[in-house]
Structure formats: structure tokens, C-alpha cells
């Protein structure tokens, strides 16, 4: 029987360093491993003994692509421990800066990482030669997202303005004026992008996933909500550890997270969209429909459309938040540390991000636990490959490899929290 191995030592166009290994015997897949060898950095360990006020700056450094997600989960978990509620305009500003990160991160993924797969380019630079307008548009969208982060956060990567209780300084209304203009322009562009992604060639591939995301009664979820799934899960962040568990597999420096009861599940744009379609803005819903998305989308390749719908939504939401903005009385609510454990999940661009902190009465961190979206998706990514490869055995090794990579990128795995290809070995037995 012929057997082959698909091996990608360095996955390209993903954030961080990972590799892929698939072994095929005849028409049967016998092994799939998404290896993550991004070196461990031990955040949970050195958070111990640090002060609660340092956590959001430190955890931001887990990932340069979605630092705001880390900051948001961190501050919410700590506020949960201290029983502090941050609302009104401060809450709105947090949503707004998160919109910025979704836009920046999604635009990066759509245009720089994923779209080249669909169109057969190695990278955006190659793609720009044939599709200059699309690429320009994409870069401008990304820039608009970064502008939100830079204005509220001080800079786009590892913003400095987020703190437990709110912010260090809140922007004036006037500072939003130029931003509002560029966002309004970008929203129109974003509509075009949704339409464009819908025209990409998608393979027929659907699986029966368990989608997990936050759900909030009034809004599309960013910072708050219950953790729900299409298979009946409905819990608070406090109960996360009861239902999810991390396993350490030999082939990876990242931990795999699974649902204790049902195993693999998927988080991210597809999950959010499927569980919160009704909470999208009318414009985003309208464009989603026009793009051929139904309320539930099970084709992970179409996540690129879903991402662009979320980008459109984020612009819509950002504009709404800016229009309703009033400078809050104070940049942050007062904090009194107490000994307690706090829990929070927020929606990082790549999906659910769980933080838990045990803190002493001096505000020192005793214990920290962080579960990034990519660990949660890892098993599902491998499952997709188990399902996908047998369907495409007729492809040449090169094409099969690209298809596998594309399928991995469906999840926008962030290997730093989970990016890349170098060498391909095909073993035939």
C-alpha cells in the first residue's frame, strides 16, 4: 500500500511557529499533528508575585497580534475578583478599542495571510501585482483599525492606556473627529470587501462542529456574555474550568483544550457568527445574507467571509460608539484589592480567551491561568485535516499540502498564542 507523509516544518502565514505532519497510508489518514514548537514563555509562572496593575501590560506580550484581547480578558478577570464593575463610557471605550483590534487582526488575516491561498499567491505582494485595488483597500482597512487602537491605546501593539478599572487617560471628543471620518470611509470599503470575499472559490467542506462563543443579551459579544454552544453549553466564565480542560500533547509546546464532555470544539469568528447572528448590525446582517451566508455557516473555508462581515460590523459599531461618546468623569474607577479569584472570557479576534487570577489582599497574583483561542481550536484543526485529506487524495503533493495549509489558516491560528512552511517531505511506504 502506498503511503505518504505531508510535512511542513515551518507553517507560513500564521502568527508564530508551527509545523504540520500528516501521514497517509493508501487512502487512509493515519496521523495528523499540528505541531507547535513556538518556544514556551511561561507567562503564568512569572505572573506569580506581580501586582494586579501589571498584568494587562504583561499578558499583552503573549501576542503582538491581539494584545488588546489579552488586556481585556486580564482586566475583566481582575475586576471580577475585586467585584468592580466598569460601565458607561469606559465600557464603551473598551468595546471601541476591541473593534480596532478585530479590524486590524482580521484585515491582516484576510488580506495578508488567507486570501493569497484562495487566489494562488505566495503572499500579498504577489497578489498586489494582479489585484492592486483589493490589496490597497485591505491595507487601508487594517490601517483604520490600527488608528482606533493608537488613539485610545497610545499605540497599536501593546497599547499602554488600558488598566484595571478603565484607562489612564480618556480621549476628548475632538480627538475622535478625524478618526470618525476615516472610519466612515473605511466602512464603505468594508462592504466591498464582504462582497469580494464571497466571490472566492470555496471547497465543499462541512463538519458537525461544536461552536463555542460568548453570547450577550443585547450585543454582539466582545467583553461580556455567557459561554454558549450550539450543543447546549450555557455557562459563565466562572464555570469554565468545570467544563473545559487542557491536555498537554507530546508533539506540541501549546496545550490542547477540549470540552470535558464532548472533546473538540471550535471558537472564533465562525462560532461567534453562528451563535450571535441576530446581534449583528442590520448592515452587517444584510451584507452577510447578500454574500450567501445563512445564519449558520459550517464551512470553515468561508470563515474569510465571516471575518469580513465582522470587520464591517466592527466599523459600524465603532462609529456608533464614537457618535455616542461623552468624555467620562474619570478615566478609571477606583480599585481596592482583595483576596479573591477572578474569571473572565472575552472574544479575541481568534475566539474565546479565558483568564483566571487568584489574587491576595495586597493585590499580588498568586496564580494565573490563560487559555488562548488557538489551544482551543487545535484539536478541531487536526480534525478538519482528518476529514479533508481523504477527500483530496487525488491532488498532487504540492496541491494537497497547500490545501492543508489553507485549512489550517481557516482558524487564523496564532501560534505565538499559535504562523508558516519551509520543507515538504512526502514519504511513501
Amino acid at each position, binding site marked *: 500500500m502506498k503511503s505518504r507523509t505531508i510535512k511542513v516544518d515551518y507553517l507560513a502565514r500564521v502568527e508564530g511557529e508551527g509545523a504540520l505532519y500528516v501521514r497517509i497510508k493508501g487512502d487512509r489518514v493515519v496521523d495528523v499533528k499540528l505541531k507547535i514548537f513556538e*518556544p514556551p514563555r511561561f507567562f503564568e509562572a512569572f505572573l506569580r508575585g506581580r501586582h494586579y496593575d501589571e498584568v494587562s501590560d504583561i499578558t499583552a506580550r503573549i501576542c503582538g497580534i491581539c494584545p488588546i484581547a489579552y488586556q481585556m480578558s486580564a482586566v475583566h478577570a481582575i475586576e471580577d475578583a475585586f467585584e468592580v464593575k466598569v460601565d458607561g463610557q469606559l465600557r464603551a471605550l473598551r468595546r471601541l478599542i476591541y473593534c480596532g483590534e478585530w479590524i486590524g487582526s482580521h484585515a491582516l488575516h484576510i488580506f495578508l495571510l488567507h486570501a493569497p491561498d484562495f487566489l494562488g499567491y505566495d503572499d500579498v505582494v504577489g497578489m498586489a501585482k494582479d489585484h492592486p485595488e483589493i490589496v490597497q483597500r485591505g491595507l487601508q482597512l487594517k490601517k483604520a483599525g490600527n488608528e482606533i487602537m493608537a488613539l485610545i491605546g497610545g499605540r497599536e501593539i501593546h497599547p499602554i*492606556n488600558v488598566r484595571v478599572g478603565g484607562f489612564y487617560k480618556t480621549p476628548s471628543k475632538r480627538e475622535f473627529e478625524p478618526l470618525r471620518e476615516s472610519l466612515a470611509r473605511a466602512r464603505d470599503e468594508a462592504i466591498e470587501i464582504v462582497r469580494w470575499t464571497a466571490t472566492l472559490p470555496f471547497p465543499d467542506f462541512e463538519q458537525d462542529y461544536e461552536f463555542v462563543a460568548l453570547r450577550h443579551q443585547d450585543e454582539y459579544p466582545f467583553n461580556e456574555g455567557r459561554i454558549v454552544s450550539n450543543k447546549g453549553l450555557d455557562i459563565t466564565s466562572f464555570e469554565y474550568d468545570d467544563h473545559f480542560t487542557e491536555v498537554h500533547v507530546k508533539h506540541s509546546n501549546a496545550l490542547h483544550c477540549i470540552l470535558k464532555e464532548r472533546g473538540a470544539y471550535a471558537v472564533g469568528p465562525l462560532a461567534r457568527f453562528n451563535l450571535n447572528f441576530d446581534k449583528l448590525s442590520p448592515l452587517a446582517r444584510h451584507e452577510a445574507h447578500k454574500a450567501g451566508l445563512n445564519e449558520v455557516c459550517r464551512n470553515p473555508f468561508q470563515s474569510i467571509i465571516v471575518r469580513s462581515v465582522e470587520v464591517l460590523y466592527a466599523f459600524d459599531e465603532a462609529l456608533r460608539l464614537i457618535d455616542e461618546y461623552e468624555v467620562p468623569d474619570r478615566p478609571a474607577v477606583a480599585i481596592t484589592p482583595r483576596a479573591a479569584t477572578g474569571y473572565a472570557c472575552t472574544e479575541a479576534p481568534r475566539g474565546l480567551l479565558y483568564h483566571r487570577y487568584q489574587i491576595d489582599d495586597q493585590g499580588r497574583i498568586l496564580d494565573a491561568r490563560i487559555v488562548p483561542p488557538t489551544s482551543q481550536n487545535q484539536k478541531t484543526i487536526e480534525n478538519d485535516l482528518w476529514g479533508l485529506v481523504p477527500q483530496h487524495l487525488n491532488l498532487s503533493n504540492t496541491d494537497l499540502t497547500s490545501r492543508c495549509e489553507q485549512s489550517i489558516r481557516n482558524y487564523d491560528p496564532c501560534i505565538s498564542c499559535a504562523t508558516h512552511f519551509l520543507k515538504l517531505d512526502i514519504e511513501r511506504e
Partner: protein
Amino acid sequence: MKRRRRPKLAVWKFASCDGCQLSLLDCEDELLLLADTLEIAYFLEASSAVIKGPYDLSLVEGSITTPADAERINHVRRVSKFLVTIGACATAGGIQALRNFRDVDDFIKIVYATPAYINTLEHSTPIADHVKVDFELRGCPINKHQLLEVISAFLQERKPNTPAHSVCVECKLRGIVCVMVAHGTPCLGPVTHAGCGAICPAYDRGCYGCFGPKETPNVRSMGRWLGSLGMSEDEQWRVFHSFNAYAKPFRGFSPEVNEKSNDQG
């Protein structure tokens, strides 16, 4: 325009958060021009295409934390004509160098259930501890305008304008009101390398040193003053031991036991 052969650019990653290489992709307005000026020959985060070295300009992100990486950096040096480290990880060991102050096995046990699978070095070390580095760009993360400045300077064979003086100079050039003097907020600006544009003071918080030590930083005097502003010894230790904890002048900082009289002598 005289068109020379386009220099080949490579971007390498070691232990890091990807933020510094992302800074390159965050140059939305310049990205395509950049790709036109330099041949992007190796940049896994952005491209599947890999063009063989040697590379004229290598940007290296991340610190060395595993035996394999300690090997790989030697390879990177061999294939690079001009090697620039980008960011606190690559120039100072990064936040992950906090392990250098503790026992790494304890760290592994805290994070991983099956520590045996993890192969890591005891220390997280900057690139310059392993190979010769031609230029170091500071920051956690680096500032994208400075990155463009370094690349433009490389192309023109000039010295990049990335002054090593304090953040205070940038702060004052912007006319920001000093948060330490006017509000009593502890600020590491006076001992921290410029480059960020003094964003923290501009947002009403003290600088936390993410660009690492400036030229000739007086960390002892700084520590004493932080103490007089009410920072405990533990807080003083922590503030110097964050994203550039392993950078020499910060690494060696230990708070002076606060004497009663807070004299400045």
C-alpha cells in the same frame, strides 16, 4: 533612477510575541513600496515563498530560549550580511527573561502538566549573547517609524536616527507635562531609551521602561527617588524587572534599603 539589485530582506523569529515583525506589516502605507525596494526573501509570517540566502538585511525578533534556537541563530548569522535585532526580546531577552531570575523547572511545572515534553534553556538571552549583531532596535514593541528609519538608513548606508537618550527628551519635545514632577506618578522615563515618542506620559501614566535602558542610566538614583515617591522595595524591583529585565543596567538593580532620611546623596 539608478536601479541596483534589490537587497534581500529576511525576517526571523525566535521566542517572542510576533509584535515586532507585525510592526513591519503595520506600515500599511509603505508596505508595497518596501516590497518593491527590498526583495522579501524570507518572512514566514507574511509569505510562503522562501528565497535562498545569503540575505543582505536580516531582522531578528525574539530571544534564545531553546537549544535548537541557540543553533539556529548561528545559521541566521551565517546567511546574513547585516543583522538587526528588533525588539526587547531580541535585544534584552524579553519578558520571558524573567525566568533568568528563578528556577526554570518551577516555571515549567506551573504551566505544563507533563514537563518532560518541554525542552528549554535555563535562560532567555538576547541575540547579541550568541552572535555579532550589527544594529539593535529597541522597544517592546519597536516603533514602526523607527523600523522604517532603520531600513531607510540601511538602504542609504547611513546611521539610523534612533537616539539613545532618555524618554524625557521626547517627552519635553512634545511639551508633555511631566507626570512625575506634576503628579507624583513614578516614571522610568529618565532612565529609559527614547523611541516610543513618550506615549505613556502623554497618556498620563509613568513610563514603564519598555524600550529598555538609555545610555548611561543612573538606576540607583532613579530607584532612590521612586522610593521617596512611595514605591516599596518590591515595587522598585518589579518596575526594573519587566520587559527588559535582563538588560544589564536593569538586571543588576536592587533597591537600596530605605534610610530614614530620604536624602539624595
